């Protein structure tokens, strides 16, 4: 496992001082489907959104691994899972895509606000008819002088109800298969772009979703991320970050549950001894610990390999499945 540096630990401890504020008023956000605006102000102040971005644009210049290290602690400490989801969606969908594929002018114009959190970001990939099958998307982008005209509909846009910036994936060449999709950075107030009503996500009340409609929406060519036709590659890069960052938050959440189980198994007594001393309880706790460490190992190992520039398609799929299954199994109260 990775040996974290003193700087990594100090950074994690410094930012984690804010996690109590992130978690404020959680019961309210567990009841109503609303973006947690007030906790988001604490998120902005904490600097967590700045982690993986270049200092030139207001970032903290940290690696993917260090970013994950802090996000794991976020999952352990902040029980507002919708807020945690909003944080990772914002960072990867818009910030990571913009930093890696945006022009310098586009980064100058938008990355500082993404780092600060003053502009909330999201991306629009899924469509009502094609689900997350990116190649089956019907939203089109037609060249028109120095602009592209975008038309179509998107569904389940996380952070959508409050997003200021949306990375929209659209078809620029219908017959070009995987090279027919392009990523555009679109501002909320662009004429022709409208948002549907907030929809409650299952288990994520404080991360409301919405639909998005593009009706001949004119987006400047300068707002293309990467090159025309390279949208799938942009999405591949973003999805890699998304899986690693979202799921490491989930392992932090598993760690929190494990800690509570261990504490309870020590406190609760039956037949004159703490229940943790009974094999049936101890075994379940050991299985939780093994599941947690397996998830962490797959996620951090994949992140190291990705950072080294190696292909991680299969590793990422495995890491996602392992972490997902373990979280679901433990969440349902069964041994992993």
């Amino acid at each position, binding site marked *: 496992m990775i040996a974290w540096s003193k700087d990594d630990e100090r950074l994690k401890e410094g930012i984690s001082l804010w996690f109590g504020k992130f978690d404020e008023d959680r019961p309210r956000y567990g009841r109503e489907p609303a973006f947690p605006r007030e906790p988001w102000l604490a998120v902005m102040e904490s600097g967590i959104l700045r982690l993986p971005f270049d200092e030139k644009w207001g970032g903290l210049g940290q690696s993917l691994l260090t970013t994950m290290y802090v996000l794991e602690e976020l999952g352990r400490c902040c029980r507002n899972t919708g807020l945690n989801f909003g944080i990772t969606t914002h960072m990867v969908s818009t910030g990571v895509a913009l930093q890696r594929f945006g022009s310098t002018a586009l980064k100058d114009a938008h990355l500082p606000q993404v780092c600060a959190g003053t502009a909330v970001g999201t991306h629009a990939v899924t469509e009502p008819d094609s689900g997350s099958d990116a*190649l089956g998307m019907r939203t089109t982008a037609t060249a028109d002088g120095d602009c592209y005209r975008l038309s179509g509909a998107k569904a389940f846009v996380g952070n959508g109800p409050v997003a200021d910036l949306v990375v929209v994936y659209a078809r620029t060449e219908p017959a*070009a298969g995987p090279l027919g999709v392009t990523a555009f950075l679109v501002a909320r107030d662009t004429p022709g772009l409208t948002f549907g009503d907030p929809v409650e996500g299952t288990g994520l009340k404080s991360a409301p979703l919405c639909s998005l409609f593009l009706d001949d929406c004119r987006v400047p060519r300068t707002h293309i991320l990467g090159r025309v036709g390279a949208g799938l*590659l942009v999405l591949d890069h973003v999805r890699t970050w998304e899986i690693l960052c979202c799921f490491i938050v989930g392992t932090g959440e598993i760690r929190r549950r494990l800690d509570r189980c261990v504490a309870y198994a020590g406190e609760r007594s039956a037949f004159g001894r703490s229940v943790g001393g009974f094999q049936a309880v101890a075994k379940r706790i050991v299985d939780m610990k093994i599941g947690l460490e397996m998830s962490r190992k797959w996620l951090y190992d994949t992140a190291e390999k990705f950072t080294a*520039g190696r292909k991680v*398609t299969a590793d990422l799929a495995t890491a996602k499945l392992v972490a997902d299954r373990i979280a679901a199994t433990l969440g349902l109260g069964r041994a992993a």
Partner: protein
Amino acid sequence: MSRIDAIKRHLVEEYELGTAPAELADDYDLLRNGVIDSLALLTLVSWLENEYALDIDAADVVPDNFRTAASIDAFVAAAVTTAKVG
């Protein structure tokens, strides 16, 4: 075997085109004819990187570089030159 023939052979064998490599036209549109889907694109980029010792930037994976066997060959030729100069 020339580079374009090696590329054609890879395309025919890997993506089961049902034709002989020599019969695959230089300008056969691999995108419009559905030869290259999302997984095929990733495996093709990976194969080119290994075969020709390249580090292909995602920004270069665009339609005009991958539309035909000839365009892939031209893209690799330019990339090999850049790699040598770099």
